[in-house]
């Protein structure tokens, strides 16, 4: 070959890839720090942080512990979170084995229904439980009129914990399902070959392999229990049971009446440290989980266990469980939205009405909250996906010097409870000059949501990214492409399915979010979640269920379209 080599133009003065590395890193840092800094500062100030004469103090913590009933609040939170986790793990793991590995009739659609609760906010779930199993709930009344006594009390810590646990069980289920169905079939075959029966092989080989999934989701659910607002607010409110989140919520919302910024900041810090510790613990427990690595090169599906004559008995049991804890909850919400009053004593078709929906659609505020929710989920989801993809590419696929720190920073929001993220951004907007511009707009909500769900998006993209061999990037670099061209022309196109999944997940999370928004919205920027919170507080159950119904329908349509048109993988 003669010297026909095409010479490249000289190296550019400013490397555009480097600009992007630093841009992404700085933006991520600003996003993570902006809710944190004001809370930490506030916790050590004796006056609201926007006042210029505020001085340093430790008194906030002292006052917090002196506050009557504070110890009780912490114990409540702990008990509630432990119960949430325990219920979620037990039901999630058992369902994973049954759905994933047995020939239970209808296991396909039962598995589908079982993950429904993940698509909607636990505010909707809580309201559904309230409608069906609350003190004057449909099923409660029906049972009482039948056996004479009220068999359960939802307005107790135990009741709350069970409901929260059942609404979080799908999370444990999905993670365990991955572990039991992707397990190397040869491992069980090996157990069979040394003399174990099919049940023994499952019990002794595959079930222990769920351990990392179980530990991981256990800590996740514990954290969710600690930072959950809706269920303690709905069920604990009437009976005066408080958890840290409802305490923060009440104090924060009532700030206008009695400014208790200091105590709120102090409580927020304690909550933050607790959650951060748990997330660290999760990482610590997951160390050395390599010995449970179940997914190996060759994909062969493990065999299905024959339940034999127990098949239909188990089906009846599982179906009853799914019917009573999921189908009935959703049915209750739909039903309640279409009647004036829901009671087992009068047939519901005699109480049918469209008044609830009319009320929603005739009010500019309510309609606006629906529009805002859709806009935030759609626009925020797109921006969030682009941002998370950039973070993942810089953190995992670049020569950026601070790639690893960037990943840690980006995953930090896992340790940031929604209520604190909301509170922090609320302080930041008040505190930092200039941020007033986005105060009370949907943009501040979008910003807070994106920050909060970076880890969720990252979790959708990172595994797909590690499937793309890095010699594909190297090949592009050596062929003459710089980093930006390489990721945009080679890596991102291959990553397209994961990007769609990331977008779908962010959309769903943004659409159902309410906690983070509780402190940030103002008239004009309300979303479905915040409007529902207000309506619940006023006891307007009809419009609440109408709004919840609308939320569920929009979500269902979106999930259907995302799976069909985008091929997005959302929860299985």
């Amino acid at each position, binding site marked *: 070959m003669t010297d026909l*080599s095409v010479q490249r133009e000289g190296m550019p003065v400013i490397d555009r890839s480097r600009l992007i590395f630093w841009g992404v890193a700085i933006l991520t840092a600003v996003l993570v720090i902006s809710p944190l800094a004001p809370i930490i500062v506030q916790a050590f100030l004796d006056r609201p942080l926007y006042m210029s004469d505020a001085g340093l103090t430790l008194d906030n913590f002292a006052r917090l512990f002196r506050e009557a009933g504070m110890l009780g609040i912490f114990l409540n939170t702990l008990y509630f979170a432990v119960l949430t986790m325990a219920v979620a793990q037990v039901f999630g793991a058992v369902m994973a084995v049954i759905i994933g590995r047995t020939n239970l009739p209808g296991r396909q659609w039962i598995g589908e229904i079982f993950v429904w609760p993940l698509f909607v906010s636990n505010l909707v779930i809580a309201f559904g439980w309230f409608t069906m199993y609350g003190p004057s709930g449909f099923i409660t009344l029906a049972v009482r009129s039948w056996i004479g006594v009220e068999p359960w009390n939802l307005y107790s810590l135990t009741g709350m914990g069970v409901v929260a646990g059942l609404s979080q069980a799908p999370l444990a289920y999905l993670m365990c399902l991955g572990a039991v169905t992707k397990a190397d079939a040869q491992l069980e075959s090996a157990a069979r070959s040394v003399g174990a029966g099919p049940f023994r092989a499952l019990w002794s080989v595959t079930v222990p392999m769920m351990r990392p999934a179980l530990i991981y989701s256990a800590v996740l659910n514990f954290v969710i229990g600690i930072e959950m607002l809706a269920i303690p607010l709905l069920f604990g409110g009437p009976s005066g049971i408080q958890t840290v989140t409802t305490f923060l919520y009440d104090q924060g919302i009532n700030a206008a009446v009695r400014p208790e910024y200091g105590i709120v900041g102090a409580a927020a810090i304690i909550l933050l440290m607790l959650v951060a510790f748990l997330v660290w613990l999760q990482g610590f427990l997951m160390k050395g989980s390599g010995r449970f690595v179940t997914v190996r090169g060759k994909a062969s599906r493990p065999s299905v266990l024959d339940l034999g004559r127990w098949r239909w008995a188990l089906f009846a049991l599982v179906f009853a469980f799914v019917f009573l804890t999921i189908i009935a909850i959703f049915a209750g919400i739909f039903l309640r939205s279409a009647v004036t009053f829901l009671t087992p004593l009068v047939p519901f078709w005699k109480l049918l009405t469209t008044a609830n929906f009319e009320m929603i659609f005739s009010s500019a505020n309510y309609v606006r909250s629906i529009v805002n929710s859709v806009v935030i989920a759609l626009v925020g989801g797109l921006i969030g996906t682009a941002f998370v993809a950039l973070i993942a590419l810089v953190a995992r696929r670049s020569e950026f010097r601070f790639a690893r720190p960037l990943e840690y920073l980006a995953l930090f929001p896992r340790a940031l409870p929604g209520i604190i993220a909301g509170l922090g951004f609320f302080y930041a907007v008040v505190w930092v000059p200039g941020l007033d511009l986005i105060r009370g707009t949907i943009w501040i909500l979008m910003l807070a949501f994106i920050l909060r769900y970076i880890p969720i998006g990252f979790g959708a993209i990172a595994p797909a990214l590690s499937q793309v061999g890095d010699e594909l990037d190297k090949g592009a*670099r050596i*062929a*003459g*492409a710089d980093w930006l061209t390489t990721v945009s022309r080679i890596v991102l196109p291959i990553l397209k399915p994961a990007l769609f999944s990331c977008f779908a997940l962010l959309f769903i999370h943004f659409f159902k979010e309410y906690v983070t928004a509780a402190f940030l919205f103002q008239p004009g920027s309300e979303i479905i979640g915040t409007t529902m919170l207000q309506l619940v507080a006023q006891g307007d159950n009809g419009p609440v269920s109408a709004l919840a119904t609308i939320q569920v329908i929009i979500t269902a349509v979106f999930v259907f379209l995302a799976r069909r048109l985008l091929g997005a993988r959302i929860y299985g």
Partner: protein
Amino acid sequence: MADLVLDHLTIQYGDVKAVDDVSISVASGEFLTLLGPSGCGKSTTLFSIAGLNKATSGSIRMGDKVLFDGATNTFVPPEHRNIGLVFQSYALWPHMTVAENLAFPLKLRRLGKTERDERIAEALKLVEMTRYADRYPYELSGGQQQRVALARALVYRPSLLLLDEPLSNLDAKLRERARVWLRELQERLNVTTIYVTHDQAEALAVSDRIAVMSMGHLRQLGTPKEIYERPADSFVADFIGSSNFLAGRMVQQEASHAVVELKNGTRLRTAPGQARSDGSLVVAIRPERIEIVPELCENSFLAEIGTGTYLGSIYQYHVTIADTELRIQTARELPPGPVHLRIPPEATAVYAEAPGEY
């Protein structure tokens, strides 16, 4: 096309020196092979030439262009080196057709559509893959993917072609054909080529020169014939082909020959060589160079034929000489029983260190 010079190249990861003070200069149009066992630093060296990893010290120059210099902290990013690289896994971009894979580097070089199409057609013709231009990589066999990968590395006429074990994913028969084809193509294009492999037969067959590496060090640099017939040390003698090693002590050292006393006291006449300061040494002899003689003479031993292995074209037997087990290779089958073996002095080599003693 210019020559490539690696000058005291060192690549360190933490405390480990993956490449330790390696200096090689590759002439224009030469086919040089980096050969060594896995973990010897050959791929690390290759990737540092490509710019895909950064060396610690030393320098890499191509003609008058400095690609890397530890002293002045010069580092040209891979995309500005104009080097072609074929990966072990081929690294064909799965979302692009064969033609699109080839078009990508040309688009980056802002070539017009007409010229691009010409170049692509030319490169595909070169690797006999013209018919497959519109296929996606997953629709091709391993051998076809390997050809496309080569075409993609050549299509922009790089100043240097790097090949990282490109044949290791092919089956044995295909691999043999592919290496002949590859060498012919390289000679035709006269492109300077650096080839990485752990397969010595492949290295001996295709290379102008071979650089044998072990544990980050360059052990020997020479033509295939030099490497095979005059290994610089016992590692090379052991790694290239195979060698028997007899431990002994230097008794007499002349310019033309040496006399070595083996462990059991037998004396052996050998080629000249160096011993350690205490006189200890190893004598290397290739299995196929040990002769069977009718009666005892100089440098011959009485041995018992042990277990044998039939290797198709040859037979290999284990025998014991001077308390050391040796392998011998013969063209004909040997009956079990005693035999006279002779170790020709000119077929031996004497090294101070035994293999694995570095």
